[in-house]
């Protein structure tokens, strides 16, 4: 049957709360990429979306042992794959 379903890709902003996902792509400026990477957010990393505050406010994710708040604009440029 369809055991090999294609995983759903979406921007981090669209990921439902409390769902686990894997980072597939970080678009956007090199500076922001470097900053995210040094905080432990690189491609292939797993994260859990904790909350989204609404009104285009930050998205809060947990990655490893860190909790990071990511501005809406940046979060929209991070593509994740639900697992």
């Amino acid at each position, binding site marked *: 049957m369809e055991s090999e379903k294609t995983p759903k890709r979406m921007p981090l902003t669209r990921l439902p709360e409390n769902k686990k996902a894997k980072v597939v792509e970080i678009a956007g400026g090199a*500076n*922001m990429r*470097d*900053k*995210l*990477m*040094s*905080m*432990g957010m*690189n491609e292939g990393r797993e994260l859990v979306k*904790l*909350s*989204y*505050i*609404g*009104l*285009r*406010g*930050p998205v*809060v994710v947990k990655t*490893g*042992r*860190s*909790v*990071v*708040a*990511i*501005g*809406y*604009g*940046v979060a929209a440029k991070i593509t994740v794959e639900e697992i």
Partner: protein
Amino acid sequence: MIKKIYLVGNPNVGKSVVFSRLTGVQVISSNYPGTTVEISRGWLQFAEKNIEVVDLPGTYSLEPTSGAEETTVSLLAELPKEEIAVVNVLDSTNLERNLSLTLQLIEKGFPVVVCLNMCDDAGHRGIHIDAVKLSELLSVPVISTCAVTGSGIKLLMSKIQEASPVARGSLSHEARWLELGRLIEQVQSLEHRHHTLRELLEDASVRPVTGLLMAAALVFASFKVVRFIGEAIIAGITDPFFNGIYRPLLEKLSGGLHEGGFWFHLLIGDLIGGNIDFKQSLGVLTTAPYIEIGMVLPYVIAFYLILSLLEDIGYLPRLAILLDSLMHPLGLHGYAVIPILLGFGCNVPGILSTRVLESKRERLIAATIISIGVPCVPLQAMIIGLLGKFGGWYVGGVYLVLFSLIIILGLVLNRLMRGNSPEFLLEIPPYRIPPASLLARKLYFRVKGFLLEAMPVVLLGVMFINVLMYFRVFDMITGFFAPLIVKLFGLPKEAIVALVVGFLRKDVAVGLLAPLNMTIKQLFIATTLLAVSFPCVATFFVLLKELGLKALIKSTLIMIGVSVIVGTLLNFVILR
């Protein structure tokens, strides 16, 4: 031979607490990233020699991506590597991410000592780290510490001289993360823990509904508690002291002086209804100490107690998340709430901490907003002192004007200035319960700082004013500004003296406004103008230092414009 010791680590791992422990130099530490915006230096007694210890701002990597990281990288390059030791402070509860910087430091050939800080907290969370094994794998000394209580610090001191460079090849970013994974597997074991109350609260405070409810409750409670503590200190300690002990002493002294003479005028000031009036007499020995100790100090203590508590628990970054989307129209992002909140204590540390904001544009907006719209504790004590007896509406009215100014200024500056606001990206610390000793030290440090800065200015300021008044120098100023003050603002012309003196310190000005017998409308306008016109001289200098002359001039022109507009509007439109 080691000449300098650098403290390097990720933001919010407790470098400043380790620094205070090593050197005995008190610096402010809090539970949020970016508390240290200035580089602190101290000395460590070491093998009968004094070695300089430098506390560097937190950094995630040695590839400079922000101002703080550039500072760290350039300072580390000042001396040859043989002459320094790097104490790499790590948060034991988040080993993987913290070790990334450790590997980079070792790869670059720095002599490193690893300090696994917050090891007690890690234990509470069921995280166990094998420090001996980690030391073997990294080939550098690794010491577990809990800087808040001081455990492990002695051992750390003794191991610093063992720091020496280790040969380790440079890794790419991806390879380093793989290597980290391997290291972690060998040194860290986790116990499974169920969700604790603390984690539930951490989650609830960043969710829309519960988060806003918690924020509203906390802000409201903070205001109430600050007022309650402040009033309790005044009613229970300072007022009984001034009226019961100090007044009789002063009366004896004033009996020996000739009323109306120079010395009487300087030390005691004017008698109001035949008596010394602490708020109005305006003498170096009467009003000056009363304003600072009897009116302002109680609120300074109360404010910093509550602020320190919120800082150390780790609540402020969560407030920043909640307010982020509301701050964007003002050209700022959520993290600007931290400088703004600090500004409510004193504008100077508030403006200094705008360094946590990335761009020059944001810093100018935040600094201007703080210096015009954020009233410091002394100013707030004055607002309450002058208007409080007419009821909360008038006090609230001044706050409303200031709040509106913050919004309008932010909106306008965001429109006028080129560039756009950078995005929010912030690590959120876990909630921590600060030990009372740490809170007490921080409070003492801040209150002492306030007294050392405020007392000399107030005493000299009042003396200076009295000398000038005695020789009638102010008459010239009042004559010159009379048309502006009287026609536009509807104030008695002497009020200008208070506004000019407000430049020294806002709280000195109250002694000048109180005796003018103004109507409540005039008093409201004068108080508001005192709040929005020039910041005090200390704030002025810090604006100059942080933003440069050009930005200061811009900011000053905005202030003058705002004062004239606000004074005129209040006089002719709002309070008709």
